């Protein structure tokens, strides 16, 4: 029997969570890391529970991570790809919610291209909802897995200096990380060209840099963001070549960070665009592989806590 320490019905974002909320999930996830490394990775905590991963956007990695998390806790996990569902036949998001309610599920994991869509859905369904990324708004499990990765390497989050670099404008990962790191007392820097930084972003409690060398000076963690190709062709930035020259992470720029600084990336990486292969594959400093491992553990912790709050009989129609 799991005990409940996370006092929320849904996990829609990091904004609004307290430091104890976040730490309870991280502590629980630490335990799941060990379980996932043992031979018997199964636990029957969620036996009989139904989890649906509803993805309105393609994402093999995140969906697989959620699927694995649910299955390792013993839940029945169903993946619904929105392109293959009734959404394309004109069903509205609210209609979808009604349909899901009729299926008596326990947890709904949602990825949607529009900011706010997951919250809208959460208001209409009877189950617990986990935001697996909504537009450029939030991606809370990514921020939690990033925090767990950093904490396991550095022993703490408080007092660390973290540089988040690249396309912040379109990034839900950046927004969730800003909230989480600020809540846990880390110092956050944003690094990028002005065209890829949202207006008034400093109001979120971050320090803004347009010169990557200055932005990486003495940081503990370098968090790179993925840049989409369609943003590279003279629109937000002139070219891949110019972007890599000024904002790509290479050994020379990384040398300005602290000697024990670590490198993170939410994946999938564009090698030679935002990150140099030498740096991405540096076994001493790159935590990119660990991030994937922590992802499963963090999502198990989230499923664990959100199902504790559910009534013993699942929601009705």
């Amino acid at each position: 029997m799991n005990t409940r320490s996370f006092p929320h019905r849904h996990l829609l974002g990091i904004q609004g969570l307290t430091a104890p909320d976040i730490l309870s999930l991280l502590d629980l996830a630490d335990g799941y890391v060990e379980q996932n490394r043992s031979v018997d990775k199964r636990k029957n905590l969620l036996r009989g529970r139904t989890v649906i991963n509803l993805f309105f956007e393609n994402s093999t990695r995140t969906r697989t991570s959620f699927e694995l998390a649910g299955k390792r806790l013993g839940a029945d996990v169903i993946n619904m790809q929105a392109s293959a569902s009734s959404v394309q036949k004109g069903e509205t998001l609210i209609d979808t919610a009604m349909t899901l309610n009729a299926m008596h599920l326990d947890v709904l994991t949602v990825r949607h291209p529009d900011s706010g869509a997951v919250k809208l859905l959460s208001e209409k369904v009877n189950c617990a909802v986990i935001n697996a990324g909504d537009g450029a708004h939030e991606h809370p499990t990514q921020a939690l897995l990033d925090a767990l990765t950093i904490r396991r390497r550095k022993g703490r989050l408080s007092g660390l200096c973290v540089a988040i670099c690249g396309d912040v404008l379109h990034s839900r990962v950046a927004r969730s990380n800003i909230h989480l790191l600020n809540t846990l007392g880390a110092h956050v820097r944003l690094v990028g060209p002005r065209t890829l930084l949202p207006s008034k972003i400093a109001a979120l409690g971050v320090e803004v840099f347009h010169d990557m060398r200055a932005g990486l000076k003495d940081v503990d963690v370098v968090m790179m963001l993925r840049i989409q190709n369609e943003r590279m062709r003279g629109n937000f930035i002139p070219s891949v070549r110019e972007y890599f020259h000024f904002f790509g992470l290479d050994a020379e720029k990384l040398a300005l960070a602290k000697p024990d600084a670590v490198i993170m990336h939410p994946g999938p990486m564009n090698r030679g665009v935002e990150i140099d292969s030498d740096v991405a594959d540096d076994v001493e400093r790159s935590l990119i592989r660990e991030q994937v491992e922590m992802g499963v553990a963090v999502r198990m912790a989230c499923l664990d806590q959100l199902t504790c709050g559910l009534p013993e009989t699942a929601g009705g129609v």
Partner: protein
Amino acid sequence: MSKITTGRVAYTNVRLLDPASGLDCTGALLTDGEVIAALGPDPAIPPGTEVIDGQGLCLAPGLVDMRVQLREPGEEHKETLKSAGEAAVAGGITTMICLPDTDPVIDEEAIVEFVARRARKIGLAKVYPYAAATRDLAGRELSEMGMLAEAGALAFTDGTHAIRDALVMRRALGYAATFDLLIVQHPEEPSLAEGGMMNEGEIASRMGLAGIPAAAEAILLDRDMRLVELTGGRYHAAHVSTADGLDVIRRAKARGLAVTCDTAPPYFMLNETAVGDYRSFAKLSPPLRSESDRLAVVAALADGTIDAVASDHAPQDQDSKRQPFAQAAFGAVGLETLLALTLDLVHGGVLDLNRALALVTAGPARILRLDAGRLAPGAPADLVLFDPDHAWTVDRDRFRSKSKNTPFDGHTVKGAVRRTVIDGRTVFQDA
């Protein structure tokens, strides 16, 4: 003509004019190699120094001309780096900033480096290129501004084209601000200017020529000021020609925006009547405006709204200008008349000598953050020795420029260049 001096040269018995500091006194200036070593009423002149008697003439920083079309590469029949360099030094200009509207367009590092290397080899006026703000000057995709700046591009502009799309301009300003770079705009709303040949008004109506309304300038400037505010970018408006346009700039400056502007001599010397009998040499872009606009330009020069005067040198060959007015190319040459026409502001009582010179020296140097346009120890020894009162008549057939298209042919002007010095070397001397 050009004479190599490697050592020290003293220019004695001169009126020293330094617009950057306001210095205006009789004295001497000493150069050592490529830099100014000393200046003042009576600087010590070491033995072995070559002494040039200035005969009471004015000695000022060499002119910085911030808007020049050089036509090389691509249209060498109109002008070359060499012919423009000769015209420039004859006009007292020691630094030219050239537009990217060559063929190929200056939108790649290799072309920036080509122009700079060619100009260095020629050894006349120094040349710094602007690079294209958008690829191929097409107004759609941003150029590689960061790397172009590292290669030597001084600022970014689409040359004689306005950056038309508001979103592209927003991104250009924002992206340039990432590297603290300057965007230079041709401030004219293209949809209102399209097909126009001269200033819209009574004269255009009588002549049956399609007009370009003065509002085309204020409309684009107004939009751009809002985008400057939104992005925190640095912005320069080229050849501002209207009262309303200048008001937009004046208000933006009062609000503390990083905005500067220049104008060119035709806009304070001439008005739309110069088009006269369909004279294509007076077909300029922006067009010569009404007399009230001309007076507003003069007032803006006097009150400091206008930061610089550029020649807006736009060489056109005979084939481009000997055409029906509608089909003739826009533009006028201006390198060899820039100093004298700017000095008209002094002779007309609008500005004192140092303030007029600032418009063609320290003013543009400050906008472009160039180490030029000042007389100070350690500064480059780029100098012009001139007689501010000598009257002469503009004769286009005597221009060194390959193209002769000037609306000032036959005008009598005051102010003659006697000697031009670049990096301590005399590169022009009036015979």
